[in-house]
């Protein structure tokens, strides 16, 4: 079983639109891989908005814990506030309280409190779902806004997708990744055989593409690049192509700016299914062919 992760560094470059189109192309007859889909952007899970799945299983996700002070047993000694490195303990009129938003869940205060007045309370941090869509099974999740542990939830979603893939002999897990390079991205990259980076030829897009490429390199995952909205700024596109040549990174295609991508999203469909002959659809199909070849090549 192979794992392909779609990343970008910068947000809004078109990861999810590309992932949805890939899901569509992989669901067609004679597709090279039988695929399970996983949306690893749990802060902003948008793949479901295009794939329109129906949820068949829903589970709670209990994330980290936060400290809570029992005022009846508190002697107001202040040790908790002293040991807290996250400025989470505050005192007003000798009453100590923990700010659940600032609390990191380290429990240092719990172990240092001489009166055993502090305990950890587990937090409901979100939900994860197993869904069925016309493009195949989809695992996705929703992190409750302002909650922690998005990396853990990403790991959970991916684990579930892999388990199903192993159980039912699927041969590809397609992971739609989050933006950035930190904790949830690291969780999304972990275990991947190949990363497709959706770059944007803008000043910000190129800057962040470098950061995500360094990240995939750091974790030893091979990365391919496609440029989305490639025609909005040709200098940027040239810069990316030149960089790929110099660094020996495989460029797998250029997708033009195409309003049909937004229109298909509004209609809740992958662009390749909504308007298969539109410029973006044709370009994504070429990118897809190259990426599928690259996965096959890895098997050799």
């Amino acid at each position, binding site marked *: 079983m192979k794992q392909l992760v779609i990343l970008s560094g*910068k947000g809004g470059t078109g990861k999810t639109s590309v992932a949805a189109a890939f899901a569509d192309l992989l669901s067609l007859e004679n597709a090279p891989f039988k695929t399970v889909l996983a949306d690893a952007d749990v*802060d902003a899970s948008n793949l479901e908005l295009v794939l329109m799945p129906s949820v068949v299983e829903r589970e709670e996700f209990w994330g980290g814990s936060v400290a809570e002070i029992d005022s009846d047993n508190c002697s107001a000694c202040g040790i908790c506030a002293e040991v807290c490195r996250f400025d989470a303990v505050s005192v007003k009129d000798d009453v100590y309280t923990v700010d659940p938003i600032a609390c*990191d869940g380290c429990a240092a205060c719990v*172990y240092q409190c001489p009166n055993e007045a502090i305990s950890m309370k587990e937090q409901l941090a979100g939900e994860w779902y197993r869904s069925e869509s016309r493009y195949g099974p989809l695992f996705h999740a929703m992190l409750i806004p*302002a909650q922690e542990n998005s990396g853990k939830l990403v790991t959970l979603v991916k684990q579930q997708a892999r388990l199903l893939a192993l159980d039912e002999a699927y041969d590809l897990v397609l992971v739609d990744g989050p933006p950035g390079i930190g904790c949830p991205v*690291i969780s999304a990259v972990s275990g991947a055989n190949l990363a497709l980076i959706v770059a944007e030829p*803008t000043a910000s*897009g190129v800057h962040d593409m470098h*950061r995500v490429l360094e990240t995939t390199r750091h974790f030893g995952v091979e990365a391919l690049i496609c440029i989305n909205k490639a025609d909005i700024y040709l200098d940027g596109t040239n810069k990316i192509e030149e960089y790929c040549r110099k660094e020996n990174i495989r460029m797998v295609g250029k997708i033009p700016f195409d309003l049909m991508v937004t229109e298909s999203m509004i209609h809740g469909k992958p662009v390749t299914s909504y308007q298969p002959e539109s410029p973006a659809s044709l370009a994504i199909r070429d990118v897809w062919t190259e990426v599928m070849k690259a996965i096959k090549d890895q098997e050799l």
Partner: protein
Amino acid sequence: MKIAIASGKGGTGKTTVATAFAQALSRMEYSVSLVDCDVEAPNAHIFIQPILDQFEDVNVLIPSVDADSCTGCGLCAEVCQFHAIVVIGGKTLVFPEMCHGCGSCTLVCPEQAISEIPNRLGVLEGGLSQEGIRFGQGILDIGEPMAVPVISKLKKWQNLMDAEIVVIDSPPGASCPVVESLRGADYIILVTEPTPFGLHDLRQAYQVTQVLGIPAGIIINRDGIGDTGVDQYSAEVGIDILMRIPLERKIGQGIAQGKSLLEVKPEYEKYFQQLYLQIGEALSSGNNL
């Protein structure tokens, strides 16, 4: 006044708004600082071109175990909530990338065998832009998972927060790095695009502002590209739409080249100045805009 720019969805134009806002306000003779809290993908520097001349590492303190005094009792592993310190075969091992630097293991060790050493997560960079904007950004090191300590140190760094107006450019999403960036703000501007993705993620971001209890308004970017979902939602929940920036090739191309919105569309200087005055009046009267 501290104004934070957030979004939920990535790529909606947070940095475009944050940099234009900071520039417009600095031209009103206020002292302005711009703090780029998107430490995973920091881009504001591209548009305001500060001269970066201040640098400071961000470290968390991680445990270092003195093998001679360690008895392998495992108390450190027991109290660690993040599995960053474990005892295997009587030997105590530390996993730095898992460690939150809380110091709990050091405190509980009965042999005082644990001391703390700095582990670098990233760097802070600061300087002035040509227009006199005080600028600060955090940069998370490659391969480091934890953005929050970099953001929280950035927000306490130098005197960035002492300016008359502080503009905070937040990362996308709705989880801990966003919360850390927005904490302490007086007002939050949510930048969205009028599409189903934009709306879905706007809802998430708006809920974060409600959890934090900070008033918020919306700027719709690329107005005209999609549908009317964002307008309907903002009317339903009663959030103000503060500004609309149209979908225009000229704007997109200018931003792509690294030009700020004010360079491409000078009239936005006035719009952002008016917006600031409106926000100030609304906050002092406690009303919506």
